[in-house]
């Protein structure tokens, strides 16, 4: 989808949709929001809808950062300690590697 051809209201609408849907535990939508609308919100000359778009992009970036830290921390802990957790580690795992603890 080429953002150049959309009128500004529709761009704002799209940004808002991505922002709101990201709250359904979908941080990837926030990532898309940030990457796609960054140029629109911060690099283009100002227009009316841009301020609102800026808040959306900023908040998406915050949310993304939050998810990123939480997931990274959890994944690191899990990968490191799963073997030591014994039964709990096995019940938390979807696929258990064969032949290693």
């Amino acid at each position, binding site marked *: 989808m080429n953002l150049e051809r959309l009128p500004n209201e529709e761009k704002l609408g799209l940004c808002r949709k991505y922002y709101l849907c990201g709250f359904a535990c979908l941080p990837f939508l926030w990532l898309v929001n940030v990457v796609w609308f960054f140029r629109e919100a911060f690099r283009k000359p100002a227009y009316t809808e841009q301020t609102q778009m800026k808040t959306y992009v900023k908040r998406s970036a915050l949310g993304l950062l939050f998810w990123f830290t939480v997931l990274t921390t959890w994944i690191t802990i899990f990968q490191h300690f799963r073997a030591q957790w*014994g*039964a709990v580690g*096995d*019940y938390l*795992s*979807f*696929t*258990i590697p*064969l*032949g*290693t*603890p």
Partner: protein
Amino acid sequence: MYGMPMTIFLFVCLFVTGVSCNSVGDKIYVDFKDNIPCVRLLNATHQIGCQSSLSGDVGVLHLLESEENLDWVLSSGPDPPYMVMLESTLFTRSVMMKLKSSSNRVAGVVVVAPNTNPSAGFSPHASCPNENSGVYTEKYSPSLAHCNATVWNPLGNNLSYEEFDFPIFSLKDDNDTQAMRQCYMDHNRPVNGSKPRYPLCAMQLFSHMSAVTDTATCMRRNSIAMSLNPEFVCDPLGDVNIWALSKPLNVTEKGHKPGESVIIAAARLDSRSFFFDIAPGAESTASGLVTLLAVAHALRNATQEAQLNTTIMYTFFHGETFDYIGSSRMVFDMERNQSIIDLDNVHSVLEVGQVGLHGDTKLWLHSDPVSRRNSSIDEEVVKLIKNLNSSAKSLNFSVEEPGSSQALPPSSFQRFLRARPIPGVVIENHQSTFTNRYYQSMYDNSDYLNVSYPPGLTPEEQLDFVTDAAKSLAKVATLVARALFVQAGGNGTSVVTLSVLSQVSRLLYSFLVMPNNSWFHDTRFTFHFITVIVFFSPGNTTTNFYIGFMLANLTGSVVNTTQENCNNQKENEDDKETKHLYYYVWAQGAAPPNGTEREGFCVRSTCRTTKAVSPAFELEEYTSSNYSTWTESRWKSIKGRIFLVASHDLEMLTLGVGVGVLLTSLLLTFFISSKADILFNSGREPTNATY
């Protein structure tokens, strides 16, 4: 227009080359013909055995010439990791422990199995077999526990119970192995201390085991319902116990049989070695097994005619090597009233242990000193020993008791004693420590038992040839048969000649030399089987169908009925009762001399099989210390191959050149495409310019 003949030509070419294709893989790798790995076993607390990495372990081949040469592998060799090839004389505990301690330089070990047994004796088993699962615990008798008084297997180096994190395979000493040695000599041998130059001969072994840590972990992972198809990683060791009665009892009514008194004549069915699926067990298992089978056959007519009050139950326990799986299960079933009799019905136990005699004529009668402190038990044991003594005298044999305070050797009878004191005797060929120098190893084979045939005999002739081993085991069988008959209340003088000799020699031939012979074919269904006494494999029931049929044939009688009735467990159309007492099996029989169709017959016997899986798996107590918790890991593929390997530097150089070519071509393409208008349109400008 020209396309059509061209395509036809192309197809023809492809067809010709496709039919005679050459696989590049075949030109590089030489696969092993047989794969005899060491596998991983787990119990409640440990994992033992070997493990390779998922994509196989690769190492430069090194033929170990002496123990000092280990230094090359462990520290001075320039191209680790090494794949160590050991001759059987170097397969000792000290070498293996040194390799284990520096396993980052060792990719794997290959042991060449010799054609003759090593003279010094070798036993990878523990020196105190089944130490924690017998009857001698700290509570029962602190002085006899943990082999404090007698170390049964002094040659045991415990290798089978060590954990190795590299694969260990066994190779037969044949032409392929000689080719491997030659490969080493040509490429890998250091000349005058100089570094051998690439390419080097390398070997790759695949034996990735799925289970890890211990039995509780692997049983839990078997049953985790999370993923779409749960993957089984291990199986509990278990098979069947086989037994037959001298007088039929109702099988469907389980539990105590009032008024019945049963003597259990026991032997074991299984053996093991360091490697998977190799378990000849000639002296440790086959001797006792064959003897008891012959006894069962010999007493068939006598017990039926004499109508004795006491029943004899010929029981063959499986899994005794791994903490008495079979006998613990049978005792457990008896305690829960799930077996045909219960422990109150058991009058006494007579176990036939290792009875292979190497020239001498003396057997030892072991009993448990702790239970004999009770005078009534002691009385029964004395009676049993007296019966054995008197039957030995008539055979020019001698039996003796070892010292009165000596413990029982590892035997199935110990599990019965663990439940309650019962009088019993274990017959062995050793006074205190084992005389078997290859206990639970791959060398305990027919050669060790002296089952050898003169050269030039056909398999048929070998089947009927009576070896010295057969003669001595036949004597033991006659001894046991007579004593058992008297013990069961029979008249000693009526059992005069028991012709067990031919049966014993045939059984020995079948179990130890060539199982696939005509005698077995005539007496069984067509089953495709491998070895008889196997490394205890879960679900390996073909072996036991075999022994079951054998026992049925030897103890049962032929009845005249159709194959359909026979398979439906009845003698005629209206028969509904006899299936509770007897078991019917259809044997395929032999072809008559003037025909080709085999004439089958129906055999009726009291022979049955019962499950022999450790009670720990019934009760789901996977960390139990009372019962065996052994499981065997599963695996995906086991193979090995040998090939020439290039130096690491050459590999990196090739990779680097490839990456360089890729980058160069990308750059070139980018450059050309960005200047495409200049490079390709330069011819067209003049035509545009004319307008």
